[in-house]
């Protein structure tokens, strides 16, 4: 499956919420979409194209904006597809993919706590890797490493 086929099928379903499909080596392409139509894009990719397995969810802080990535895998086509959406840095939020792929739940918890991307309608959005009550998002560019003497041990321990 080539990126043109993906663009044709998805574009017929979601219209202008699809921003484009770029060719990406060794995958079916890299699909860029507007975040307000996320759930429709997810449903089309799963039900029309048959990408039934969510491999990973990731986030990147590009300082000017943030990018959320979904890598999905199709067992019948034996191909990957990358979904990506650009979010504004001051209001980085997108619809949760967990109704479509239940595997997204834990991946989105990790993406939220590390890169601070809010997932709407997530069933259980709490810390996965970091301790409860942790107030920082360590993979943001604005996060500064500090000497441990400056830390308040009581506040950071649970």
């Amino acid at each position, binding site marked *: 499956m080539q990126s043109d086929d993906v663009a044709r099928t998805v574009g017929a379903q979601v219209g202008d919420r699809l921003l484009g499909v770029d060719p990406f080596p060794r995958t079916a392409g890299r699909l860029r979409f507007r975040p307000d139509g996320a759930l429709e894009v997810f449903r089309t990719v799963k039900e029309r194209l048959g990408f039934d397995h969510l491999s990973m969810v990731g986030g990147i802080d590009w300082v000017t904006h943030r990018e959320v990535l979904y890598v999905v895998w199709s067992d019948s086509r034996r191909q990957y597809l990358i979904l990506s959406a650009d979010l504004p840095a001051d209001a980085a939020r997108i619809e949760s993919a967990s109704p479509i792929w239940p595997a997204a739940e834990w991946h989105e918890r990790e993406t939220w706590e590390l890169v601070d991307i809010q997932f709407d309608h997530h069933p259980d959005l709490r810390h996965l890797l*970091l*301790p409860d009550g942790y107030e920082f998002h*360590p993979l943001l560019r604005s996060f500064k*490493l500090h000497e441990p003497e400056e*830390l308040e041990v009581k506040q950071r*321990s*649970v």
Partner: protein
Amino acid sequence: MSAPPVPAAAPPSGSSTDTYRLEGDLPMVDQPAVPFVEIETVRAREFIPAAKEAFAALLAEQGQSKLIRPTFNWAGRNSLFPLHWGLACCAIEFASAFSARWDSERFGIVPRSSPRQCDLMIVNGTVTWKVAHKLITLYEQMPEPKWVIAMGNCATGGGPFRTAYSVVPGVDKLVPVDVYIAGCPPRPEAMIDGILRLEELIRERRE
């Protein structure tokens, strides 16, 4: 030149039985008819009151702390039971210290799987904030008296992850530590050396 070996004397051919019998073997003497247990009981009846008197005299002479405490310290330092758990790569060295090559059981160190049966916690690896309260729970479940060894650079002071966002900079922020072992990771010899230094601390224990 050495003489050729002389063949051993043949057994006496007088006996026609199948069993071989050494020349000069003594005839079997019957054991006394008194059972073994009864002999020991008689000896114990004589020994126990004497031991009680001697123990009471020693107590009155030296005081309780000078006798009981060294006895407990001697028993405790020769039967240290560390908690059998692993946090990071130091746990590999921890495991090999109990294998056949280093064999820490010759010092009486036997890892136990339950904190209720342990008196020594060897923190072998990087302690993250996520695992910190589990470590404290395990430490609180261990019965007194108990000791902690920080094994490796990560447990001692955070190691290479000292400024990381998720790592406790030294396990002594969480629990009291008795012995620090340097190394990344320390070899099993270093771990055994740390435990022997802890045994020296237990020898001096007074309270």
